[in-house]
C-alpha cells in the first residue's frame, strides 16, 4: 500500500461552524482524513451531512458567517493551508487543487466561448500568452473528449449539452496540472448514460495524469464504481471509513447499513424498502452523544450520554459507533420498513 510519504492531503479535526446570531451551525465538526497521491476517495452522505462544506473548507472558500475554527488543520503537499495568506491560498486553488461542481450551467460564463474560459485559466494562473493559452485550451478540450476541439472551442455554453459542459469544467480544472481534484456531485445533474461517460472520463484522467480525486456524492452506486476508499459522513462528521470493498461487504455503522438497505437496486425484488426513520437533524441541534441515535435501531443508553469516538475495526476500517466497542450488541436486526 501507500507509505505516509505519499500523503497528499491530511485533514485533522476540521471544524467549520456558521455563527448565525444566537445559534451555531456546526456543519463540519471534527473531520479527519488523508488522501494519498493518485487515489480516488469517495465522500458519501445525504443533504446536510457536511460534505460540501468540507470541500469548500479545503480550498478556504467558506464565507462569513462560516468560519474554519481554530485547532483545525489542513496540510497539503507538506504546507499548512490554514496558515497561508490570501495570495498563498490563491496559488494553491486552481493550480494544485482544482474543483468541479454539480451545476455545469451556472459554473460557466454565458457570454464567453468555452475556449476563452479554459484559456483564461492558463493566462491568469500561468501567465501564458493569448495564443499559447488558446492552444492549451484546445489541448485540454481534446483531453476531456470534446470532439473537434479546435472548432468547438469557439462555442458558447448554451450551445453545449449538460455532459459537454461538465467536460469543459473538468478541462478548466485540469489546465494547471493539479495533483488533487475535488469533484462535488459532478454527475448528479446528468442523465445516466452521460453520467457513465463522465465517470469513465474521470477514471481515465486519473490514470493518465496520476491525479488524486476526492469524489463527493450521495450515490453509493457511483462510490462503488469509481472509488478505492470511502468516507461516510453524517452530522458533520466522518461516521465510517473503509476501503470500498470492505465497506460494502461489512458495513459497521448502522447509518451505512441503513443507506445500503434503503436503496432500490436493479434486480432486487423486495416488496418494501428498508427505511431510516426520521430525518437528518439541523446542524444547530445535533443530538447529544451519538448524532445518529434518534434514527438508530440499535441505540441504547450509552449512545445518549457518550459521543462515540472513531473505533478502529481493522483493515483500514473505522466507525464512530459503540457497536464496534460492544460487539455483543451487534446482532442481526430486521431493518425497519415502515
Amino acid at each position, binding site marked *: 500500500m501507500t507509505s505516509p510519504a505519499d500523503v497528499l492531503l491530511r485533514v485533522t479535526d476540521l471544524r467549520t461552524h456558521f455563527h448565525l446570531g444566537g445559534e451555531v451551525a456546526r456543519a463540519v465538526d471534527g473531520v479527519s482524513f488523508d488522501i494519498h497521491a493518485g487515489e480516488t476517495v469517495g465522500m458519501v452522505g445525504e443533504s446536510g451531512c457536511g460534505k460540501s462544506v468540507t470541500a469548500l473548507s479545503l480550498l478556504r472558500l467558506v464565507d462569513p458567517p462560516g468560519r474554519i475554527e481554530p485547532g483545525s488543520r489542513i496540510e497539503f503537499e507538506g504546507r499548512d493551508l490554514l496558515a497561508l495568506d490570501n495570495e498563498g491560498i490563491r496559488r494553491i486553488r486552481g493550480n494544485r487543487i482544482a474543483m468541479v461542481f454539480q451545476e455545469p450551467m451556472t459554473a460557466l460564463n454565458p457570454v464567453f466561448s468555452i475556449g476563452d474560459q479554459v484559456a483564461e485559466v492558463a493566462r491568469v494562473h500561468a501567465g501564458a500568452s493569448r495564443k499559447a493559452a488558446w492552444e492549451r485550451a484546445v489541448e485540454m478540450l481534446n483531453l476531456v473528449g470534446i470532439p473537434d476541439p479546435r472548432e468547438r472551442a469557439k462555442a458558447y455554453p448554451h450551445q453545449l449539452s449538460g455532459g459537454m459542459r461538465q467536460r469543459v469544467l473538468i478541462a478548466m480544472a485540469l489546465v494547471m496540472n493539479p495533483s488533487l481534484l475535488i469533484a462535488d456531485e459532478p454527475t448528479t445533474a446528468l442523465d445516466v448514460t452521460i453520467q457513465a461517460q463522465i465517470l469513465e472520463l474521470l477514471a481515465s484522467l486519473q490514470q493518465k495524469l496520476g491525479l488524486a480525486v476526492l469524489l463527493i456524492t450521495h*450515490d453509493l452506486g457511483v462510490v462503488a464504481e469509481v472509488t478505492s476508499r470511502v468516507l461516510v459522513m453524517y452530522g458533520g462528521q466522518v461516521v465510517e471509513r473503509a476501503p470500498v470493498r470492505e465497506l460494502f461487504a461489512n458495513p459497521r455503522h448502522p447509518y451505512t447499513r441503513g443507506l445500503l438497505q434503503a436503496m432500490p437496486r436493479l434486480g432486487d425484488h423486495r416488496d418494501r424498502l428498508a427505511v431510516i426513520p426520521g430525518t437528518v437533524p439541523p446542524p444547530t441541534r445535533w443530538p447529544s452523544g451519538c448524532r445518529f441515535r434518534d434514527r438508530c435501531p440499535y441505540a441504547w443508553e450509552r449512545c445518549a450520554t457518550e459521543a462515540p469516538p472513531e473505533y478502529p475495526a481493522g483493515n483500514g476500517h473505522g466507525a464512530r459507533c459503540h457497536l464496534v466497542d460492544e460487539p455483543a450488541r451487534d446482532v442481526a436486526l430486521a431493518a425497519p420498513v415502515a
Partner: protein
Amino acid sequence: MTTPTVVPGVLADPLLAVRRLTKYFPVQEGLFGRARGQVKAVDGVSLDVGHGETLGVVGESGCGKTTLGRAILRLVEPTSGDIRFDGVDVRALRGRALRTMRRSMQIIFQDPFSSLNPRMTIGATVREGLTVHRIAEGEAADRRVRQLLEEVGLRGEYASRYPHEFSGGQRQRVGIARALAVEPRFIVCDEPVSALDVSVQAQVINLLRDLQRDRGLAYLFIAHDLSVVEHMANRVAVMYLGRIVEFASSEALYREPLMPYTQALLSAVPVPDPVTKRQRIVLAGDVPSPANPPPGCVFHPRCHHPARDAACAAIVPPLEEKAPGHWVACIKQPPTAVPWDVQRQAGATHEPLRHLPVLAPQA
C-alpha cells in the same frame, strides 16, 4: 394512407387508454418569434393503464416523459390523439365536466420545494381540493385534512404550518396528501422521489405503494431512475425522443431488454457493488435535439447493435411484439415485420441478429 395504431400491451378493460398522442411545441426564432418548425415532445404515443397498476415511464431528459404525463391530464393541451379515462373522452371535456374529471386524475410533482404555495399553510393546500370539488366543508373538511396528513405519515397538527417548516421528504408527503384529498383513481407521479435523499426516498416509495394497495390507485410513474421504476412498476415504457421504443412487463424488460437503447441505459446504472464488474455500454454522444431528430430510427446515431447499418437511418422502426407482451422498435432485433429485401433496398448490409449483451447481475 392510414397505418394501424400499434398499442403495446393493450388491455381489455383499461382505466386509461391513450392513442397516438402527440404534443408539438413551436420553435420560435428571431425577434418576432416566428415559428420555425416544431419540437415533437410526444410523438404518437399509445398505451393503456390498468386499474390499480403502475405503468412506469423511463427515459432521459428531453425524451418527452414529463410532457406525456401532463398532456394526459391536459395540463398541457395535446396537439392530437385520444385520451379515454374510464371510457370518457378526456379531450372533449370542457369547463365543469373537465374539473369533475380532474378529481379522478391527479399529479404529484418532482420538486417539493416549488410545488407548494409558500404563503398557504399545508392544511389550506390540502383543503383546497376538498372545497373546490365540494367534497367537504367547514369542520368536516378540517377533520379530513388531519386524516389525510396522518395517512401520509405527518401529524394532524402540522396543518397550521407553512411549507418552509418542513424537509423535502415531508413536503413531498404534503404533495401526496393534496393529490389524495379529492379521492383520485389515477395519479401521474412525475419524478416523485428524485429530489429526495436515499433514506427519505425509501419512505416515500413505501408510502406510495401502501396507498396504492389500500386505495386501488393506478399510477403513471415517470422517472429517470431505473432501479426505482423496477421497484414500483408492473409494466414499463421506455421513451426516447418522444416515442415509446420498448414496452414490456417490468420483469421481462429488466431481465432481457431488447432495444439497444434500453440495454445501454440499464448498463449505465451504477451498481452499489464494488466486487461485480459488469460490461458497460457507454453510448457515444448526446441525445439529439428533439427539434431536429435523426431520420429513420431516432436512436441509430448512438446505437451499438452490431447489425446497425444504413437501413436504420432510412426506415422508421415499427413498435413490434418480439416476444409475448414485449414490444420493441428495432428492425435489427429479430423477429421483424420489415422484410430483408425492404431493408436491403434501404441500404442494409447486415441481416437482423439477436443481440443480448450481458447486463446487470441478478440479485
